[in-house]
């Protein structure tokens, strides 16, 4: 009896004295104050991801999650500084393009041996998703999506210009046709054909990259030689500048302004990512927005091969995490993996085969309109200097659109600088 009492006391003591494992979490996507714990009704990237995190915090026994304040533009700088200072978050989101840098230096953990115990079935991941988180034979994270550049379409403007057939927009198949369509929209509606953020984030870069890939060219090869000042580079850039020259598009809009122009009904096409599909769907449903009839299309093929810029979001844990902390962090990863369908509501493409094939996924708004995007998704070859290279391209391309820098000069400057970065 005495032993029993002692044992129960010890057990209760042990159970109650075990504090919840604190898991710190770093992410971008923006802030959502009142996300709640209902993962099935939230809208927009920020609120959907925060509702999933809140739900994990509430539902996972013995795990309590703190979301760290981070900022989009400086996210990787912050994460790197945290790693360098020895205090990285226990769980953090990142892009696949950063894997070579973070995994190469041993910052993030190879979790291939932990997946099964954590209840994460990597065989359910689409092959491209597994590829996204793989590096040097290891698995360095849990993939969450594929995201890509799309053409968001205002069907009313397209209809007015006679560019709708069988309920779908008629999109250009060559740079010449692009100019033609743009002129048709201008003549019929007085509005711009195309809007995009050419002045702030590298959306314009992704446009040009896609047009280079469509010519089976790339900005640098696997051997580390920059190839930007090329025929393909010039073709890609002039396909876009012809619109600016003819005043059928405005290069000076930043991200928020270009989005506003589209929502106000001032542009027939907005080039932006998968991450805004649910947001634009919701906006189009509102009475007061200028955009009423919204359609999502795959990035059209203006040259030989279909291609659009794409990337993946994934979740990783630091290699320094061990024992209880690592187990808790992996449970959070598993929870996020289980909620892949909720994340896909943003407009992103799911990574789990079981989700991709589900009715809940295929019946998401507009999903069937951009079903072709997965097969044309591309990105630049892996490089530890991805961020710096994107910045060089963004700067030189902005110099072309915003300051009338000569195309030839900008491309050759970009090539020199990218080569410098590759050689460093």
């Amino acid at each position: 009896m005495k032993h029993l009492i002692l044992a129960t006391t010890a057990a209760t003591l042990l159970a109650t004295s075990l504090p919840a494992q604190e898991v710190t979490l770093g992410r971008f996507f923006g802030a959502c104050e009142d996300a709640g714990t209902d993962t099935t009704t939230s809208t927009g990237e920020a609120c959907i991801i925060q509702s999933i995190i809140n739900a994990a915090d509430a539902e996972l026994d013995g795990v309590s999650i703190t979301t760290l304040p981070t900022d989009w533009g400086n996210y990787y700088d912050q994460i790197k500084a945290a790693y360098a200072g020895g205090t990285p978050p226990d769980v953090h989101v990142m892009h696949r393009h950063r894997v070579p840098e973070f995994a190469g230096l041993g910052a993030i953990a190879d979790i291939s041996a932990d997946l099964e115990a954590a209840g994460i079935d990597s065989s359910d991941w689409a092959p491209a998703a597994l590829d996204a988180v793989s590096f040097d034979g290891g698995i360095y994270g849990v993939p969450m999506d594929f995201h890509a550049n799309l053409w968001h379409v205002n069907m009313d403007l397209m209809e007015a210009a006679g560019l709708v057939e069988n309920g779908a927009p008629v999109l250009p198949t060559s740079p010449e046709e692009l100019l033609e369509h743009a002129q048709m929209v201008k003549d019929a509606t007085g509005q711009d054909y195309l809007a995009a953020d050419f002045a702030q984030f590298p959306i314009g870069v992704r446009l040009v990259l896609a047009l280079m890939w469509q010519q089976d060219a790339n900005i640098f090869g696997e051997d580390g030689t920059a190839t930007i000042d090329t025929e393909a580079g010039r073709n890609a850039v002039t396909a876009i500048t012809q619109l600016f020259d003819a005043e059928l598009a405005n290069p000076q809009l930043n991200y928020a302004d270009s989005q506003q122009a589209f929502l106000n009904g001032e542009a027939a096409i907005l080039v932006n990512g998968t991450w805004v599909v649910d947001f634009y769907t919701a906006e189009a449903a509102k009475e007061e927005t200028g955009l009423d009839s919204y359609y999502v299309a795959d990035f059209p093929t203006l040259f030989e091969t279909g291609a659009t810029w794409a990337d993946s979001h994934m979740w990783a844990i630091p290699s320094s995490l061990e024992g209880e902390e690592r187990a808790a962090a992996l449970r959070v990863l598993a929870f996020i993996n289980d909620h892949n369908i909720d994340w896909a509501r943003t407009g992103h493409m799911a990574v789990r085969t079981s989700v991709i094939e589900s009715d809940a996924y295929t019946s998401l708004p507009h999903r069937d309109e951009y079903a072709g995007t997965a097969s044309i998704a591309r990105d630049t070859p892996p490089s530890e200097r991805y961020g710096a290279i994107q910045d060089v391209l963004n700067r030189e391309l902005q110099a072309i659109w915003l300051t009338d820098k000569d195309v030839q000069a900008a491309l050759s400057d970009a090539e020199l600088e990218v080569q410098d970065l590759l050689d460093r």
Partner: protein
Amino acid sequence: MRGGGGKTLSQGQAAFLLLLPFLSAYALFLVYPFFKGVWISLHDWNLLAVAFNPDAKEYVGLRNYERVMWGREIEWSLMAAPFWQGLGLMGLVLSFAFYRMDRLSLFNAIALGLASALLVFLPGFHPGEGGRWYDRRFWPTVGNTLLFVGLAVPGVTITALILAAMLSGQTRAMSILRTLFFLSQVLSVTVVTLIWQIMFSPRQGLIANITGTFGGTPINWLTDQQFAMAAIVIATVWWSLGIAMILFLAGLQDISRDIYEAAALDNATGVKAFYYITLPNLKRTITLVVILQIILHFQVFGQSHLMTQGGPNDTTQVLVRYIYQTGFRDSELGRASAMAVFLFVIMGAFSAIQFIVGREKQ
């Protein structure tokens, strides 16, 4: 000071003892990091790699400095930057002439002459045939930073001086206005840049709305090459007026009323009094404000980083932002530290020039 054992400390010892807490904090948080920075700048030092393996750094001597500031086939000629070099030559001639005409003291003539000589010398470097700078962005970035300082420092100083002169009265309205003008200084750079980004927005901004009512086309302040630098200078002036204004107000209170009254008898009031009495009496304060502003604005970062991201076409890229990107985005801590040391040197030089010139004129 008399201790329990009857020992007395000399004045020097007591001073040292009292200064010790400050000195140790100063050494730990300023002197040590500074020398550590210089040491890092002599290494090939990857931020992440060294964090995971302290041996991953490599001593490279002055190579980081060379890679940042120098290039292949760099030549010097007198006609590389005709405007600046011409200005420098003119400065040389003038400082000599003024010295001969006794308009300048020997000391000031040497200072002005040295500055002019540097203006002739430094812009003269350029890549020759087939050569190029190793880092094509560094010197343009230095130029942008100098331009920013050159616009923001006089902008803040003059505006603050005018405001202080106008608001130095003792009425209630004046004190409310003083508080209002000072309030912007309290805001953090994120708030300031957010406010001004909205103000400058060509779609919903206040400025665009005002020009719109007069039928003007809105200016794309932050994405137009001609206006981007002006935009961040305007935001900066609005933001950092407060401290300068307070310093001027304090300076104004030190000027005796008697002088103004005496001047008024000689018919010197208003602008005349300001020019002949207020300005000369504020000379020390002006020097202080200018030095503080120079040091402050050389370190500009937030306005450029948050409002224009250094764009368009790098026209608002400034040194600290470049250091930050090199260190944290590109993980090249050695290179970034070399740039930081350079920034320290030019900030020190500018402050020294201003300090010496200001003191000499007493």
